[in-house]
């Protein structure tokens, strides 16, 4: 439920100076209720209701979170070409720690429409707008991350009991993000070509990091603490053009490209915490992107004449991040193997119209990241039914054999460069002539045939030790709650892929009318 109230007052102080004052408040109430029921041991085939099972299980989860925020904003415009905005926002949230109150976020921005200036004399430039902004924003903790909690369990002989479920942190505060953004928007040649560019530099301080609760204190799972500083910077550029713009013909093309450079700057002395499935090796480590993958990295291995694996050399250096010269694998720790989210993203789109017929296509690509594809890893290592796992030495890849020997190799074996490019959408639209649509009483009508995800244009790594990577786009839609470390800092960054569905190909026929 969202309750949003906003009001604003505009005033012209002088002919050149105008202002707008806004105040507002938002109240968010989020409730998730999950009820499950299952049964097993049905007396005879054909019984399908849960109540007909001999052993029944039921579960219910209820999670509630509330946020109350208020803000005040003042915008000042000068000659309708320079705008300055300042604002302050205050938020309070039910998940903040007992010892922490509300949080205040200021922001300021400026926009200058340069082409409106009297001195501007480049006629082919239709628009040039420079913009800059600075601001702070918060990220609230997970619901109840601050609270010490006990959960009901089944006790001895089916009796009722409680167990410790969450240690809580009464000092937990929201993360605070501070961001500077600079950029411009421009269009030229009768707005046939448009361009926008944005550079951003964000620092998240008091980053909420899930560290393992100290076991000897008796609580399982993790404790959320404000210790980290994370930097995030990059740029986004977009270009669009209309090479053909005629009454019967129209063709436009566009492209976007963006980068993300993310780094954990400071963990406040914390041992680099792990999250996600333990064998995925994801950690927050100073100097590396958030949630990067750190695993033993076999560089070389050989078979001797007797078929024994010898000369196993792994990446040496730092016990967690590696980076040093090769050392014998039994002396090696882990090594940095990649980040779990794309380092760059790109997109292209084009549209060609001839009278009533329009053809459109979009494609996108991502790269610069890795995944632990356990459909590859488990097939080699658990099911062990791949060709590579069954051919004898020396044909068997010694690197694969080395990972297998160490154990813990599921993710090393399934570690793939996850970059890909796909034709995301291809469509053909026919706008029905008005005289036709009027025959069945419609004012307008169109027919669109489109296909989504029809072709994979590029895969950075299409096989791993001979086993195909089915679809690199598959990703964990959430963290793995069973490993307890899902929070704002890890959501969407779980690199462990096991049983998620690949992206569907779809063919869609759409008839749209208006009456």
């Amino acid at each position: 439920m969202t309750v949003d109230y906003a009001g604003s007052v505009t005033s012209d102080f002088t002919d050149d100076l105008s202002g707008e004052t806004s105040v507002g408040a938002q109240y968010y109430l989020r409730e998730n209720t999950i009820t499950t029921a299952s049964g097993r041991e049905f007396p005879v085939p054909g019984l399908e209701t849960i109540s007909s099972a001999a052993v029944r299980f039921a579960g219910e989860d209820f999670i509630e979170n509330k946020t109350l925020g208020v803000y005040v904003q003042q915008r000042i415009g000068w000659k309708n070409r320079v705008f300055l905005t300042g604002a302050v926002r205050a938020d309070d949230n039910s998940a903040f720690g007992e010892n922490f109150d509300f949080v205040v976020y200021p922001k300021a921005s400026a926009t200058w429409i340069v082409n409106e200036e009297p001195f501007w004399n480049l006629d082919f430039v239709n628009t040039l707008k420079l913009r800059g902004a600075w601001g702070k924003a918060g990220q609230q903790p997970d619901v109840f991350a601050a609270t010490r909690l006990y959960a009901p369990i089944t006790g001895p002989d089916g009796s009722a009991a409680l167990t410790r479920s969450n240690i809580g942190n009464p000092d937990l505060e929201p993360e605070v993000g501070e961001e500077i953004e600079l950029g411009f928007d421009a269009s030229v040649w009768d707005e046939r070509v448009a361009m926008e560019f944005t550079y951003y530099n964000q620092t998240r301080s008091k980053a909420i990091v899930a560290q393992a609760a100290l076991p000897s204190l008796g609580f399982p799972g993790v404790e959320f603490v404000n210790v980290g500083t994370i930097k995030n910077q990059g740029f986004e550029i977009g270009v669009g053009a209309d090479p053909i713009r005629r009454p019967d013909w129209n063709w436009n093309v566009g492209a976007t490209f963006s980068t993300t450079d993310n780094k954990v700057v400071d963990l406040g002395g914390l041992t680099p915490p792990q999250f996600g499935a333990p064998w995925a090796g994801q950690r927050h480590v100073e100097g590396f992107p958030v949630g990067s993958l750190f695993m033993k990295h076999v560089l070389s291995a050989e078979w001797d004449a007797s078929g024994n694996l010898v000369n196993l050399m792994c990446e040496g250096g730092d016990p967690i991040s590696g980076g040093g010269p090769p050392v014998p694998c039994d002396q090696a720790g882990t090594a940095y193997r990649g980040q779990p989210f794309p380092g760059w993203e790109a997109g292209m789109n084009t549209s060609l119209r001839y009278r009533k017929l329009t053809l459109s296509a979009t494609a996108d690509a991502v790269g610069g990241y890795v995944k632990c594809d356990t459909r590859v890893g488990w097939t080699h290592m658990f099911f062990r039914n791949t060709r590579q796992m069954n051919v004898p030495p020396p044909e068997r890849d010694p690197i694969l054999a080395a990972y297998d020997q160490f154990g813990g190799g599921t993710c090393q074996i399934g570690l793939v460069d996850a970059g890909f490019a796909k034709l995301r959408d291809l469509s053909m639209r026919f706008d029905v002539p008005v005289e036709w649509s009027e025959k069945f009483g419609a004012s307008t009508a169109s027919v669109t045939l489109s296909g989504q995800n029809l072709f994979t244009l590029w895969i950075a790594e299409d096989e791993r030790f001979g086993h195909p990577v089915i679809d690199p786009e598959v990703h964990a839609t959430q963290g793995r709650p069973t490993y307890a470390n899902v929070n704002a800092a890890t959501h969407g960054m779980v690199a462990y892929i096991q049983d998620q569905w690949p992206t569907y190909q779809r063919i869609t026929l759409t008839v749209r009318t208006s009456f």
Partner: protein
Amino acid sequence: MKYGNRRKHGSGEVGTFTTAASLVLMLGGLTGCDDLLEVELPGVVDESALEDPAISALLVNSAVADFECAYNNYTFGSSAFSDEMWHSSGAQIDREWGGRIIDANHQNMAQAPCQRTGFGQYTPIQTARTEAEDAVRRITEFPDAEVENKAALIATAHAYAGYNYVMLGEAFCEMAIDGGSLLTPDQVLRMAEEHFTQALAAGTAEIVNMARVGRARVRLDLGDGPGALSDAQAVPEGFMKVASRGDDHPRRYNKGYDRYTRATAFTVSPRFRDLEWKGVLDPRVMVEFTSVLPTAPPLDHFKQTKYTSLGSPIPLATWEEAQLIIAEVSGGQTAVDIINALHARAGLPPFDPTTDGDILAQVLQERSRELFLEGGHRLNDHLRYMGTPHEIPFFTGVDHLGRQYGNATCWPLPNVERHGNPNIP
């Protein structure tokens, strides 16, 4: 219950907040309404719920529940780790437990809670220990008049706290308690002994005997033969205290049945197959061949038959264990008599030290059979006799699936404790 973090203390930011809030007075004072941020927790309770004397029995029951869960993991994790079982699945965690590839960074050993795959040890035991000790503390502080059977409840919590310390003291190389400094196994076992002593003072007959067996076990570990003997001798014949298991929730499944038998993740090792005594199969370690597993290379699955369902209880403290403690401490004819009494119960021919060899070796052999897959005894015997003439060797070298065994013996203090504990340098 309802929960809210609503307590507005003064702070440097209050003024700013008030200023901002005053600008939205038209909102009718929304910012001052703390109830708006109150949320409900219908599925969990916070700590204030434990401050009620009326739930004293629940506190103890909760400590028992978490102990039983930890003990389940401990029993079958230590068996997997010892020479009782071989791992027989391709699953990485099973292989690490069965292959003794357990180091200080082993997340499953260190942090996995009860209901998870594998055999989480350190965190479940510490959780159960702190719950038992917390129950002792809370109930002791409650007014006597408001707690029924107060002394017995406290004694029960002490007994279970003692067994939690047994697990920490016998299997781990080092230990920390409540965020404190490093402790040796002997220091931890003395804490167990103290808890058992407290339990003996006011427990019910069942708890007293449980504490007697527990204290005898600890005193044997500590080399206190006379003390162990006096406790063990006081245990009545036929006594057995079990940890309950059930099929009502995965955390209550007997893992010996669930993981070893149902999931075929472990097979009984050759050292415990077809065990005989003078040509008679020993019924205390009955094993069945069930199938050939599709591992590489293929592996025979030998099923343990001690635990035959998800709800099979696990022995915790028994007269048989007490008898074998007496035999080990006393040696000589006393040990021979005990061995032969146990043989007679099992329908086995008698042991004769003049022809059958070393008495202590036989006591250890009897322990391996009588206490097969029970409470970490086999791992404890591996460790107790390591480096002695009666050493019980772990499996080493290349395992049955062609991979290398690890070199763990006792379990290391997890790094999650070592690195997070400010009292450990």
